[in-house]
């Protein structure tokens, strides 16, 4: 099965958890996950993030769950790198 190596996600989330805690929550899902979070816009209750993830085999389902559990909403998948076996 092809492995997802790199993702760029557009995420809307509440102010809490903050960007650092949010990134940590995603990075905890895999031992080799590298997470970069860039805050693009801050509103009264929410902030828009560009989340860049890389790893040997990113689990998109679990990442989506973790984003939702932290109150976030995945707006779009802006970039993907997938590697075949």
């Amino acid at each position, binding site marked *: 099965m092809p492995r997802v190596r790199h993702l760029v996600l557009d995420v809307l*989330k*509440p102010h809490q*958890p903050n960007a650092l*805690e949010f990134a940590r929550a995603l990075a905890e899902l895999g031992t080799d996950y590298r997470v970069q979070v860039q805050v693009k816009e801050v509103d009264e*209750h*929410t902030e828009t993030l560009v989340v860049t993830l890389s790893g040997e085999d990113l689990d998109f389902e679990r990442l989506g769950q973790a984003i*939702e*559990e932290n*109150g976030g909403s995945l707006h779009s998948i802006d970039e993907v790198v997938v590697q075949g076996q």
Partner: protein
Amino acid sequence: MAPGFLRRLLRLSGSGAIMRRYFVVNGFDGALTLLGLLMGFHVSDQVDLETVITSCLATTLALGVSGVSSAYISEAAERRSSLAALERAMLADLKASDHGRAAVWIPWLVALVNGSAPFLIGLVIVTPLWLARYGPGLPMAPLPAAMATALAVIFALGVFLGRIGGVSWFWSGTKALLVGLLTLGLIQLIG
């Protein structure tokens, strides 16, 4: 419930400071109420010690129940309102998220802290009475001993507040103690 899960919800909801405030405010209420009750018995003539213990325990229990119920009702309403505002901003249902879980669990936690503060403090204040009646006895009369305990608890709450606020713990404790002594003076006047 896992402590890590609770810590996460507390951080997310920013409820740590609220709970600390509730603990001190309601604990102070409880200590002062019992101090007043004890002083009332003290200025009355010859009240049976068992009656004093029963009255103090009943008051302690009532303060605990009042603390739990009032805090739960107000916190639950506040949390529901905050969650609804966040859901409107996110255009999403957040009930399955940590924000939704916090809206369910945090009111119970805050209520528990709010109710347990006067309850536990009340039990501490009643302890000298209980020791005098059922235990080995005390080197001093039970009512003054219980009132001294109440004043010590009030001073300790003041010290706690002083340390949180980063001001002199001694002055903060003394101010709280003065409130307790003023209460005693007022009851003495009407007694």
